[in-house]
């Protein structure tokens, strides 16, 4: 598409006209890069400044005088236990909802078309519903089950199970669109040879699903790590706080110390930023469904 417009400009414009056009294009792209990165940039410069440097220099200015890593140490020691909690929750939540999604999407291919559509409409709507519509019952439900009375970590287990349940719909939909593109001949042949559904899943479907597992795992990891609302409603014991909750608490207790707040925000975001940089393609795929 770009070629066609470029060809056109070559026909009508002079060479310099074309060049100016490209310069303007890259100028606009770079200006936008500046705009998109500016909140992170001002956060990063501030996170390395002493309180004095923070007061006397603009956020545009890199930390040259009054450089310190104290904000990172303060925020890091405040957030460390919550990072551990987040990992303890997010790994089982992401793995199990992806696995459930894959099993469900595969199982549904053996169900009559009407039954499939019924389940899929339910799942599609579940991806979009505002979670506010379930918060009060969710709290009622878990206080009736009372895992938190059984074990001090019970709340964290409740939160993990909740995330698994709410992650299943999107994972199923992602896997289903992928399974529709799989070659069905191999599966049919195995079926005629008398292989059970479980065996076909283990031997054929699961190995072929690995690229989609990457997409769903990354999607769920980011979603669950970044969640705030479910954690806010389900966790009451500070020692069970996940990192988003603890970061919010840190912001409240360090209201005037932007350096510590910014360092804390970066620490809390680091796992998702790393995943995003390493697996950008898979992340984008999950977003566009």
């Amino acid at each position, binding site marked *: *598409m*770009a070629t*066609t*417009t470029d*060809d*056109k400009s070559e026909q009508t414009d002079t060479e310099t006209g074309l060049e100016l056009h490209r310069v303007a*294009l*890259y100028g606009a792209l770079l200006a936008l*890069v500046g705009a*998109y990165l500016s*909140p*992170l940039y*001002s*956060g990063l410069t501030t996170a390395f400044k002493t309180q004095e440097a923070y007061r006397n220099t603009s956020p*545009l200015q890199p930390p040259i005088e009054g450089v310190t890593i104290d904000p990172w140490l303060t925020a890091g020691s405040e957030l460390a236990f919550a990072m551990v909690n987040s990992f303890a929750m997010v790994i089982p939540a992401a793995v199990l909802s992806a696995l*459930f999604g894959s*099993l*469900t999407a595969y*199982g*549904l291919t*053996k*169900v*009559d*078309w*009407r*039954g499939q*559509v019924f389940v*899929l409409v*339910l*799942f599609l*709507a*579940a991806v979009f*519903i*505002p*979670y*506010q*519509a*379930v*918060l009060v019952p*969710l709290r*009622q439900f878990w206080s009736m089950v009372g895992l938190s009375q059984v074990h001090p970590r019970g709340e964290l287990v409740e939160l993990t199970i909740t995330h*698994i*349940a*709410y992650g*299943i719909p999107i994972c199923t939909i992602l896997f289903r669109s992928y399974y529709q593109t799989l070659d069905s001949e191999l599966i049919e042949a195995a079926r005629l040879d008398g292989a059970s*559904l479980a065996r076909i899943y283990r031997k054929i479907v699961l190995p072929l699903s690995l690229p989609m597992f990457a997409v769903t795992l990354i999607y769920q990891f980011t979603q669950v790590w*970044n969640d*705030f609302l479910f954690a806010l409603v389900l966790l009451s014991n500070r020692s069970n706080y996940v990192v988003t909750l603890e970061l919010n608490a840190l*912001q409240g207790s360090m209201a005037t110390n*932007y350096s510590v*707040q*910014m360092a804390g*925000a970066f620490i*809390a*975001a680091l796992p*998702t930023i790393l995943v995003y940089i390493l697996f*950008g393609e898979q992340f*984008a795929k999950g*977003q*566009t469904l």
Partner: protein
Amino acid sequence: MDSLRNSIKRLNPLSASDSDFFESMPFWLPATALVLLFVYGAIGWNVIISFTGWSGLGQPDYTNFTLEMYRQMPSDPNFMASLRNTVALLVAFTGVSLVVGLGLALLVDRKIRFESTFRTIYLLPMALSFVVTAIFWSWMYASNGLIDTMLNGIGLGWLSQDWLGDPRFKLAAVIVALIWQFSGYCMIVYLAGLRSIPNDHYEAARIDGASTLKLYWRIIIPQLRSSTVGATVVLMVFALKAFDFIYVMFGTNPGRSADILAVTMYREAFSSSEWAYGAAIAVVLFALALTIIGPYAYTQYKRGAL
């Protein structure tokens, strides 16, 4: 499930044999049951709670039902202000994000170098938690933060404001930050749409002598309709539940100028223990979401996209 199976058999006796159906049950039934319980069971329970008038400590009384919670909404100035703000946020956020996202997509789609780097940067905010972005933007909007510093730097210092304190700017400040976070998402949706337009459509328009502007306006934008619809649904539904960002910035009580239904619901239920009223506001939010999702799910179904 039994009745579902029977209706399936009746409607379509030849497909999906019974043995397949039973053998496949262990695969899809556990997850489906979990979703039915946690999502749909909870939604139904929430509707019931909204009719009980439950507030304060103790448990809801499921023997007495009342419409009182819904009746008091129109006369609750906080609720009405939240509803207005929710609609304003929804319209402004969705509209501007789509336009910005389309602009980004058109720029990125011009056979540029380092395309994936540019894409990665524009989409980066989507990978961040709202708690993180709310903290970054609180600092951006602070009196010595980047925005006022830049305004001073280019001689527009008189424009600087108490962005997060002044009721006139609070909601707009939130909307700008959310557009920053979501426009990259719109960009990738539009990019996927742009790349699925067949090349000969451009060729044909070029032969007809259409100008670049006309080419975009007449040929390209209309073909992006399904991208626009998909992104609009996602953005509008998100706008309804944009809780985290406002809560982290302003707490449970952002004031009438920035209150939205998602925050009002949380405050009524979890801060004031007006559980039934909170549940009723949640029902309103759910109904609003349904008016957006319903037609979308139906058209997807009609197009055979499910």
